[in-house]
């Protein structure tokens, strides 16, 4: 099975060594059933479709996209919180996709998660000490749990004397620190952060982002960082994967992606972000029309084609798109070094989508 990983890894970058996590053709479809006695599957939510990427040790891979693009499902698949419909997940070269619960246990402690809503993910009846210390008892690590917990609290910027307090006694930012400490307790290799700062005020958000960066340096952590906030993702990520309707449409180094987006969706997404105190003119913004289509009945071919300004430009009229955009999903291929894009007509260097949209 290890062979499969190397074979499929066309995109793998040999200079970076072995990936910590590699995902190959991962697909998750949630069935929608109807029927009274016999449940018949009438449709499927195409949550994640044929997704492949790898995460290298010590890096932060950002996963961005709008709601319903499958980024959170991908995270849950990665940690095996849900089972994939098909595809494989490799952790340090071992295929963990089919592992049973007990076989999975040693891998579980290597992979932790930080959630969006710090309050909802903390048991309100437990003290902070027992929340952070829980993994120690679950995984039967002996030693003075309390001391280790207090060390952790100190490390994430909490007062260790607050060991016996309850989650509701803390502010949002402090609660997220508890979540970070809990994830950190077993010294995992990989932490999946699912919108960890979305619920926080900007001034607190910056504190948590800095904390995550410090911890990464100190403990050589690898992050998969999920967010819909493109500023936050750019700030923290080394590489970024952009998702749309279950597909990864573009993967590149953070700076490369933001300066030189190849996929029309990425370009539109970036142009839609309010730039703040720069002098960009509103008229330069590419406003995509319509909403994201339903993942139950995704468009044929390239899932982005009904909203794609570039496809219209190629076809030369506002109402039509090229044949291949409508019929076939473009493979995620290398358009330049370490820059993958799934588009039949990727944007050229310096080509801006604005022109495409207005043409």
């Amino acid at each position, binding site marked *: 099975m290890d062979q499969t990983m190397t074979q499929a890894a066309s995109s793998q970058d040999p200079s970076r060594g072995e990936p910590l996590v590699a995902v190959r053709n991962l697909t998750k479809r949630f069935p929608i059933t109807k029927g009274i006695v016999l449940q018949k599957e009438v449709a499927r939510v195409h949550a994640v479709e044929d997704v492949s990427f790898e995460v290298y040790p010590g890096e932060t891979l950002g996963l961005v996209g709008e709601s319903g693009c499958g980024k959170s499902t991908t995270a849950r698949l990665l940690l095996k919180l849900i089972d994939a419909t098909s595809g494989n997940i490799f952790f340090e070269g071992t295929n963990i996709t089919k592992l049973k619960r007990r076989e999975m246990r040693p891998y579980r402690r290597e992979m932790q998660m930080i959630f969006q809503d710090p309050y909802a993910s903390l048991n309100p009846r437990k003290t902070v000490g027992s929340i952070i210390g829980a993994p120690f008892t679950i995984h039967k690590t002996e030693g003075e749990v309390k001391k280790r917990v207090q060390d952790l609290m100190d490390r994430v910027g909490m007062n260790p004397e607050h060991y016996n307090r309850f989650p509701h006694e803390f502010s949002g930012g402090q609660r997220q620190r508890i979540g970070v400490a809990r994830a950190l307790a077993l010294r995992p290799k990989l932490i999946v952060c699912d919108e960890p700062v979305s619920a926080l005020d900007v001034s607190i958000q910056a*504190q948590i982002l800095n904390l995550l960066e410090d911890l990464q340096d100190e403990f050589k952590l690898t992050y998969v960082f999920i967010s819909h906030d493109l500023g936050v993702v*750019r700030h923290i990520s080394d590489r970024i994967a952009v998702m749309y309707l279950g597909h990864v449409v573009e993967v590149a180094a953070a700076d490369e992606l933001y300066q030189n987006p190849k996929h029309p969706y990425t370009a539109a997404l970036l142009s839609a972000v309010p*730039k703040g105190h720069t002098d960009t003119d509103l008229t330069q913004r590419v406003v995509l029309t319509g909403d994201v289509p339903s993942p139950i009945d995704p468009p044929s071919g390239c899932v982005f084609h009904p909203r794609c300004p570039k496809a219209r430009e190629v076809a030369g009229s506002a109402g039509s798109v090229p044949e291949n955009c409508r019929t076939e999903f473009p493979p995620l291929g290398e358009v330049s070094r370490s820059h993958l894009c799934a588009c039949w007509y990727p944007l050229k260097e310096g080509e801006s989508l604005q022109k495409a949209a207005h043409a």
Partner: protein
Amino acid sequence: MAQEVLLEVKDLHVHFPTADGLVKAVDGLNFKVLRGETFGIVGESGSGKSVTNLTALGLIKRETAQISGEILFKGQDLLKLNSEELRKVRGKELAMIFQDPFACLHPFYRVGDQLVEAILCHEKMPKKQAAERATDLLASVGIPHPKERFRDYPHQYSGGMRQRAMIAMALVHNPDLLIADEPTTALDVTVQAQIIELIEKVKTEFNIGVILITHDLGVIADVAQRVLVMYAGRGAEMGTIDEVFKSPLHPYTWGLLESIPRVDSKGTRLVPIEGSPPSLINKPAGCAFHPRCPHRFEKCDKEIPAMQDRGGGHPEACYLSIEDKKRIWAEREARRTKAAS
């Protein structure tokens, strides 16, 4: 500028007595909104930005709150109106849209009927005529197939469409002032851009004033002409977008600007504001920001600084001398550009 002042808030205080003590949600706030402008209010949760506007609309129950000051809307003090007089202003001259479009429409009534209801509660006309007007409005805010969509229920709309419907509902009586409270926070980036564009279009087309409340400085910078930065129920700084974002004078504004990861450049290390926002019950003495402020000095915990122009060109509420402010901001900027390169 001889623009008409639509809304003027003077020394507004909104306090809520609770079992734990008096929550001072708004504590001495002043600002003006002109016709034809988008006035941004930024601040973090608990800064009082939403309470201020709910108070203006009379949506804060007067029995549960202690309100003082004045909210002059086209010269008339909204705080002096009785509930029926206030109701006649609400939705007619002063309209509001809210953050979560998923929760803001009644799930049991058709979207069209909710619009018709909004029309009929201020204006007598045959129901059929109101329905036609509602359909036209749905079309004008960019809802495709407005005739069919009129008969749909809210759950059949997407998030962006619901926010469009909310905007249509706010516009039924051509209000003079539209208050948008975090109108795009619950929406995806691409949909957010559509809604912001729509609000801008509406503002120009109807020549109205817009108050845009948000925690997203990017949105404010993109669409507002003037901005008020709020902290713990008071104004920290107010001015044009360029004034506040290019030459900010208040340490809290500096902190905000430096905490935000930027999309347009690879960030260096963020400089967060230390600590967390204060409790509104036991506010720090003097300037409420002083415990988190790296530039505080003796005077800061003694007296609350008034919001005034101290020579920097726009009003702010910080005791530092104008020279110090300019020097510190220049230093912080330099440090940032140096780190970035």
